[in-house]
């Protein structure tokens, strides 16, 4: 059952990608949503390639390290487009730069084929912090008239749920691999992934109503 759900969740990545590409081709989607499509594409690609790598080399853990860097930076790029406070943008840029340096040092110091739970948890915390600040700006500047018609809010919300839900999964992943923890962590991740992809699809479809170019 979990295997089926896992395969389903990977292929479900293609639903928002197809919807987004379709809208982009017909110029019905604002270009500011390209990072979302890029992130979904990378996510689908890394998931598929990690299965292949795991089968061939029996270790695909280094994929996670690269993926953590990519998703953190893409999410930062997407969210910062909606931030008004320049100082906050600069702050998050400095934090993400430090995160890049730390990740590179960590990979070089401890090896690429190692699951770095701390690095992934830091990335998730950065994304959670960024999204919470984004919500704060929505409050503070009152720039959005109707949140139901503001797709970035829903995309950010679903990311918040996903990264909050997988924060402890990331931290405890080594324990699961080593068999010290008998929990079905995969199921939580899979369900959150399915939920994320469905909400992203709906949000991109919702975004088609405002096809202004950036």
């Amino acid at each position, binding site marked *: 059952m979990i295997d089926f759900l896992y395969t389903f969740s990977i292929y479900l990545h293609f639903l928002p990608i197809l919807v987004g590409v379709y809208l982009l081709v017909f110029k019905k989607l604002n270009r500011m949503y390209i990072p979302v499509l890029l992130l979904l594409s990378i996510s689908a690609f890394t998931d598929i390639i990690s299965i292949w790598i795991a089968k061939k080399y029996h270790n695909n853990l280094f994929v996670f390290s690269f993926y953590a860097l990519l998703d953190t930076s893409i999410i930062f790029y997407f969210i910062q487009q909606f931030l008004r406070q320049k100082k906050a943008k600069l702050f998050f840029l400095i934090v993400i730069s430090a995160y890049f340096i730390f990740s590179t040092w960590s990979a070089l110091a401890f090896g690429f084929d190692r699951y770095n739970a701390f690095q992934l948890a830091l990335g998730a915390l950065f994304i959670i912090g960024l999204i919470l600040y984004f919500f704060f700006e*929505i409050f503070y500047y*009152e720039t959005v008239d109707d*949140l139901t018609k503001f797709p970035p809010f829903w995309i950010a919300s679903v990311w918040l*749920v996903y990264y*909050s839900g997988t*924060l402890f*999964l990331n931290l405890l992943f080594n324990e699961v691999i080593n068999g010290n*923890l008998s*929990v079905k962590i995969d199921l939580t991740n899979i369900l959150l992934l399915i939920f994320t992809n469905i909400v992203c699809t709906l949000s991109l479809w919702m975004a088609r109503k405002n096809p202004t170019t950036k």
Partner: protein
Amino acid sequence: MIFYFITFGMIFLSFAIIAFVFIYQRKMQNKRLELQQLKLDNQQQLTKSIIEAKEAEQRRIALELHDDVGSTLTAIKFMVAVLPEDLEAKTKLNNTLQTVIKKVRRISNELLPTVLEEFGLVTAITSLINQLNDQIEAIQFTVSIINTGSSKAQNKEIELSCYRIVQELLNNIIKYAHATSVIVNVKQTTSGLSVFIEDNGDGFTPKTHTPKAIPTLGLKNMESRVQHIGAKMHFKQLEQGTKVSLRWKPQQEI
């Protein structure tokens, strides 16, 4: 077990934050809309008060001119007629007085159109067109009336506002449009009132005009009056000239 507890706790917390942001933002938005509506209502009330005060003042001045100044001038005219002096000088004085009396009557009529008060909008517009035809030779004014009875809800306030708007529109055509022909269609039925004014001038719409070309005060006054009575006014630029439509229906009355 603790893992699930913490994970679902985090997910629940995320949902709670999202729900809080969503609900609170909606509340704020509703408050903002209420505030905007309140401002709009206040503005409308202010406009209404300004128009009413202006009309009341105009009425007062018109009555003063008609009843006091006009009567005094007429009395002087009769007194001059019986003066045993030079006949030529007397005739000159008489003519001048006659001109002044006419001017006072015209100003009084412009400030408070008695024909509107007594006979209603259709007759007042017809009278205005006739006056313009007499005064301005360069423009041919034509009026066409369809009158199947005035609406019960149609009151003097609405008639006066419509009359002022038509007056301002015609005034603008005379001043700026360089037109040679103006056609005014008035349609008054039990379900409402429509006025169409079409000219063959330069062509104009409020969106395309610049404040330098035409002063905006008249336009703003018209807009205020239209808003005040709950009517709709639409400008359409033609190949040559402009067509303005003014529509009022009783159900639109606020």
